[in-house]
């Protein structure tokens, strides 16, 4: 049974993220919440949404209960429209065929830059993280949606290391760095939905999740947040959204 009144933070994340997608878009999705959210959007509102995977998959077909655990294995290719080389699928981004890159994030800053390479000084790191994978390419070349957990240590003023560029140092610095296309579009957490100011390119709250206060968001964020002048409160997950989501991930691998 669908219990629309009880849902997890991960479920909220997936559902709110799925609402950001539009029918007809071509979406480069990472595994986990991004893929779950994209598939949810496809089933709910966007039958013409196309999902790409980094391993080289175009127009993936994701079956309920069988979400692939990585984007480089054969399960990702099943009943896809096309598979091609890993560099070639990234070149589709560079050419401009992709509307949205959709990833998770470990650490983000006020300008939407993501770090997945180093904690601490890169020259003598406290922790060597796995690195960019396709993240740098995707975030350099298209509009990004990031779905991630909201913790103060993950939302920092400036990341230790810009692995995947958002708006770099804000203003026109992204464009001036040689990235005239794309940029951070939305950040979705279990607390709020964030956009970026048109001029300063700093993160700002567009909508609070149901039951979340401004203070709660600010308290969990490592830098001063702006709030959009038209700040809204997000519609809670509907029972229909939850029902489809739970069909997609019946074992709660990604929504526990």
């Amino acid at each position, binding site marked *: 049974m669908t219990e629309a009144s009880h849902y997890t933070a991960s479920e909220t994340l997936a559902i709110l993220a799925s609402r950001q997608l539009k029918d007809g878009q071509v979406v480069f999705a990472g595994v986990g919440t991004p893929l779950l959210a994209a598939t949810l959007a496809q089933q709910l509102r966007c039958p013409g949404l196309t999902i790409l995977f980094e*391993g080289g998959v175009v127009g993936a077909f994701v079956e309920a209960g069988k979400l692939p655990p990585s984007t480089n*294995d054969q399960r990702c290719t099943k009943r896809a429209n096309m598979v091609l080389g890993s560099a070639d699928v*990234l070149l589709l981004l560079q050419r401009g065929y992709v509307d949205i890159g959709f990833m998770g994030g470990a650490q983000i800053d006020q300008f939407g830059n993501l770090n997945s390479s180093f904690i601490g000084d890169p020259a003598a790191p406290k922790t*060597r993280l796995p690195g*960019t994978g396709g993240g740098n390419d995707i975030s350099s070349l298209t509009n990004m949606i990031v779905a991630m957990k909201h913790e103060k240590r993950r939302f920092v003023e400036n990341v230790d290391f810009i692995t995947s560029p958002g708006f770099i140092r804000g203003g026109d610095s992204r464009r001036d760095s040689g990235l005239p296309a794309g940029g951070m579009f939305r950040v979705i957490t279990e607390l709020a939905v964030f956009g970026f100011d048109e001029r300063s390119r700093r993160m700002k709250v567009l909508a609070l999740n149901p039951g979340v206060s401004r203070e709660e968001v600010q308290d969990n964020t490592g830098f001063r947040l702006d709030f959009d002048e038209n700040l809204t409160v997000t519609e809670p997950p509907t029972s229909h959204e939850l029902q489809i989501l739970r069909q997609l991930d019946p074992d709660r691998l990604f929504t526990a």
Partner: protein
Amino acid sequence: MLEAQLEPYTQLRADLAARDRSLREKVMSLEEAAGFVQDGMKVGIGGSTMSRTPMAMIWEIIRQRRQDLSCSRCIVSTDGDLLFGSGAANHIITSWFAQGILWGLSKVMRHHVETQGKRYEEWSHMGVGMRYRAGGMGVPFLPMRAMLGSDVMRQRPEAKPIDCPFTGEKLLLVPALNPDVALIHVQRCDAYGNAQIDGLQFMDIDLALAANRVILTTERIVSNDQIRRRPDHTKIPFFCVDAVVEVPYGAAPHECFGIYEPMMKHMDAYVKQVNADPVKGMQQYLEKYFYEPKSWNEYLALIGMNELLEASQLGRSIYND
């Protein structure tokens, strides 16, 4: 540093001219093929993450106690752990290095990079791809539009940002990567090395063209006649290939498209053991699975019949519908 990385074109050409590129049989054993890999070489590894990893060849290289290898791969998984952990490699070029997305950080990678001075040289995924592609095309660089503005680029003085002479736009030129030897595992090839690859190709075609030597391991060797019936299915031409080794389950415990999926019980146990103790755990793993078995088949027997059969059933299932 750059000088060390980019061979002059005339040298690349001379290396290739000296290779025997004739249509000839080159089937040999793992042991013989491993002779193409010498200490200190640049080794390009095919496949990605847990897919079509040339594990049997890596296994043999580690058994032969190779050292100081500089390895490159688009996405590195437990192959990287084993190369660092065994002492075979001290340098790995890739865009992502963990055991697999299911298990989080690799404690083995962290140990060797954070405390042992081994180098994990990070490029963007496309950056690695464009480096192989430039190498395969016989040009010293390719232009790309990612990495710009990031610290990934700032850590890579080997790449050169330029203003485009046509448009004035900023671009990044990434240098060619021509490994001394490439290790690639395929579903099938003939005795000459004409290879067919099913499913995801990753960067293997560019890698094969870029490398100065290619060792092909294959699930099966088919006749040249079979290759010639569908020449548009050949993905790597024979004259790129220097050794052909038939090794069924040659990517185990990783997957080979259409034949077997990863052997997840083994992988889970491996990750648990090495992440619990990146030194001793790894040493014990290598002893048991790499150094002690007398043959690749003995290694497979240690992984176990149940795992192999289950992985094979899942692997074949991609064609069931």
